[in-house]
């Protein structure tokens, strides 16, 4: 087959086009300039110029999580590429499919400590699923094909493609984008589970008296929500989502429990403490969930469904591991699982739920963060896309923004990257232009990436930013309150006037100082057709409860002292 003579940069654009990529986020620079020159000729690829490469990486991540497609970000060599790194780490920990394209110094200059040279493939080994340094333009289509394939297959993750400037300039014959991945013997995920493993898992489920399901992001990735619900209903097993599994099971379902772990609901933690079988579907047993391993679900056998074999036995030993895609594994399990009624266990679960409710506490005057989140939840009918930062507001959002929409709750779980909330919300909004996207921000996290407000203005992305402004690193303050005798160290994060900031960026800015103005502000933001920043001046002394201190168990769980003082039954869930 004879092809067209094209430059390496065009090979990249042709590859992106063939992958159906219509949105990329990036920042140009010397080494990547040949690509930026050619991208002008590809109007189907909309390039969003972020103001920082971290923003490009998080935006691609938010886009990917909201849409389920591969997110693409681009940066130049050296500083540009390393600026992507925190985003890659975020995507790596949370299994988000990303292809990152970076420029590199020319081939002859590699290894000479050239201007803006960094060993980017070396630096990013631990934060990527795989990466490539491409040394010839003709390799580009194959490498791009493999990169997209690896990024989106099995347990998704970021893949980086490093392209020397002279490779981007090299003219060669482009013979088309490969249709299949032909030569990747080292990447053969097991998608269909071994029947022997499935049988062992089904046996444990059938003989369990007090089972519970922990549903993780693997369910969302495999689009196995329906199968999960079928399993839960058939065998009458309550379901606890992980932070990244929110939306994998309908939040209004009678079998739905709330989150568990460090800031999970007390009742979900107590249910796990009492269960005799825990079925983990598509999550890796993060330490914020398990706390002290020895005391985690002490009476339970463990069934662990995961497509990543290295997640098995990593943190918690599995009595019945099932390696495979969540959808295929659940499908294989379903016919072998007995129908059950399980009245006794479910009524015990309901008792725990009633005795240890997850409540929203009100303060006079100043709104509490919990209250604002609850009102956003109610006024959006739980249907908005929620992007959060990291800290107290993140935990409250996870507790109170109950949803039944897959992929609509977007948060940096594994890496806990502050600053994620601004660019990721933009990416989610651009991927889902018809959805209402609310970014629940901490005032500190917001200030880490607020330069992307300019990008958001340029792209007319109508994100609603709700800054939970407590003028502090709230979560750090909480730890210093509880574990450091209130010796507050370096936590004042007072920022600019966020209303004026909004105006400076051509956005609507609203300040809310009184609880009675919360609703009208949310509604005003919803009615405004552009981006909005709502500066909620929230209560500072509010602590996230329940809390299981790091590395401890449910026995050390602290519940909200206020809730416990209320007579039983007077606080609604």
């Amino acid at each position: 087959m004879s092809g067209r003579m094209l430059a390496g940069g065009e090979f990249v654009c042709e590859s992106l086009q063939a992958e159906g990529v219509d949105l990329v986020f990036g920042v140009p620079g010397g080494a990547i300039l040949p690509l930026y020159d050619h991208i002008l000729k590809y109007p189907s690829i909309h390039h969003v110029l972020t103001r920082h490469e971290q923003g490009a990486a998080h935006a691609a991540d938010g886009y990917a999580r909201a849409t389920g497609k591969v997110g693409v970000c681009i940066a130049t060599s050296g500083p540009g590429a390393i600026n992507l790194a925190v985003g890659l780490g975020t995507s790596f920990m949370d299994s988000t499919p990303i292809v990152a394209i970076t420029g590199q110094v020319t081939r002859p200059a590699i290894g000479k400590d050239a201007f803006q040279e960094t060993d980017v493939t070396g630096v990013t080994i631990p934060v990527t699923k795989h990466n490539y340094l491409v040394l010839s333009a003709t390799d580009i289509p194959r490498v791009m094909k493999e990169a997209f394939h690896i990024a989106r297959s099995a347990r998704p993750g970021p893949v980086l493609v490093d392209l020397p400037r002279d490779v981007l300039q090299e003219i060669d014959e482009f013979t088309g984008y490969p249709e299949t991945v032909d030569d990747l013997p080292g990447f053969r995920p097991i998608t269909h589970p071994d029947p022997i493993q499935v049988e062992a898992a089904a046996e444990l489920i059938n003989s369990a008296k007090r089972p519970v399901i922990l549903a993780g992001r693997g369910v969302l990735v495999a689009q196995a929500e329906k199968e999960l619900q079928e399993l839960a209903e058939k065998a009458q097993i309550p379901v606890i989502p992980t932070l990244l599994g929110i939306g994998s099971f309908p939040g209004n379902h009678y079998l739905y429990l709330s989150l568990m772990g460090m800031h999970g609901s007390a009742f979900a933690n107590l249910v796990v403490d009492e269960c005799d079988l825990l079925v983990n579907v598509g999550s890796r047993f993060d330490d914020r969930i398990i706390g002290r391993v020895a005391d985690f679900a002490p009476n339970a056998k463990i069934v662990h469904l995961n497509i990543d074999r290295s997640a098995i036995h990593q943190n918690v030993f599995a009595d019945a591991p099932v390696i495979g895609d969540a959808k295929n594994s659940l499908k294989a399990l379903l016919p072998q699982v007995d129908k059950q009624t399980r009245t006794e266990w479910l009524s015990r679960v309901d008792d725990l739920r009633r005795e240890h409710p997850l409540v929203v506490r009100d303060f006079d005057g100043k709104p509490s963060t919990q209250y604002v989140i609850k009102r956003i939840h109610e006024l959006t009918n739980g249907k908005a896309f929620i992007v959060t930062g990291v800290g107290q507001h993140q935990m409250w959002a996870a507790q109170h923004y109950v949803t039944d929409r897959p992929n609509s709750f977007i948060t940096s779980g594994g890496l806990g990257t502050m600053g994620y909330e601004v660019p990721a919300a933009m990416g989610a909004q651009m991927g889902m232009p018809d959805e209402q996207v609310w970014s629940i921000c901490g005032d500190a996290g917001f200030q880490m990436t607020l330069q992307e407000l300019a990008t958001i203005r340029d792209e007319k992305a109508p994100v609603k930013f709700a800054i939970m402004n407590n003028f502090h690193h709230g979560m750090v303050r909480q730890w210093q309150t509880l574990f450091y005798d209130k010796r507050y160290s370096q936590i004042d994060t007072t920022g600019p006037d966020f209303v004026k900031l909004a105006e400076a960026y051509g956005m609507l800015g609203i300040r809310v100082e009184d609880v009675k103005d919360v609703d009208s502000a949310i509604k005003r933001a919803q009615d405004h057709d552009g981006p909005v920043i709502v500066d909620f001046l929230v209560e500072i002394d509010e602590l996230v409860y329940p809390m299981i201190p790091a590395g401890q168990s449910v026995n050390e769980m602290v519940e909200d002292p206020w809730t416990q003082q209320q007579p039983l039954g007077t606080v609604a869930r």
Partner: protein
Amino acid sequence: MTMRRVISALVHDRPGVLNRVASMFRRRGFNIASLTVGHSEKPEFSRMTIVVDNVPESALWQVTSQLWNVVDVVEVMDITDEDYVARETALIKVRANQENRGHIVEILDLFRGAEVVSVSPSTVILEITGPTEQVESLLALLEPYGILELMRTGLVALTKDEEVPQDGEFRGPALVGAPSQRR
């Protein structure tokens, strides 16, 4: 309880692969006792024998499965409990003079695969190829003479299996282990 595991891996013969493998071991806190890499029967692949020390029972499955996740690694086998042959070579420079050189040669004669490869007025260089235990017992016997320099290759191993593994072959330790592994 910790143990020593012998792992055989087929990897792409490409720049950076060693870095990826080593980076994984370092990052996961696995302790490499020796890593040997060289050409395999296939031109595009190299074979590695990796000996990992102090592997706790709870991490047994981790070592092979994490290695298998490295995209440039094509085949992973934990062969510790299989029937396999393993050899290493050591070059040993020992202080030796006219008087005791004869004794050293006598010691060498007790070992298969051992010989003198170089002699100088005050030293000899010995070579031995054999299983690790054999190399170590020779070293113990030479210790009193003064070992000046030592270079060991690390283990190379092949299973005796008549079936040749396929690309993408994965043989981990038993997936469901002893109850003691549980917590």
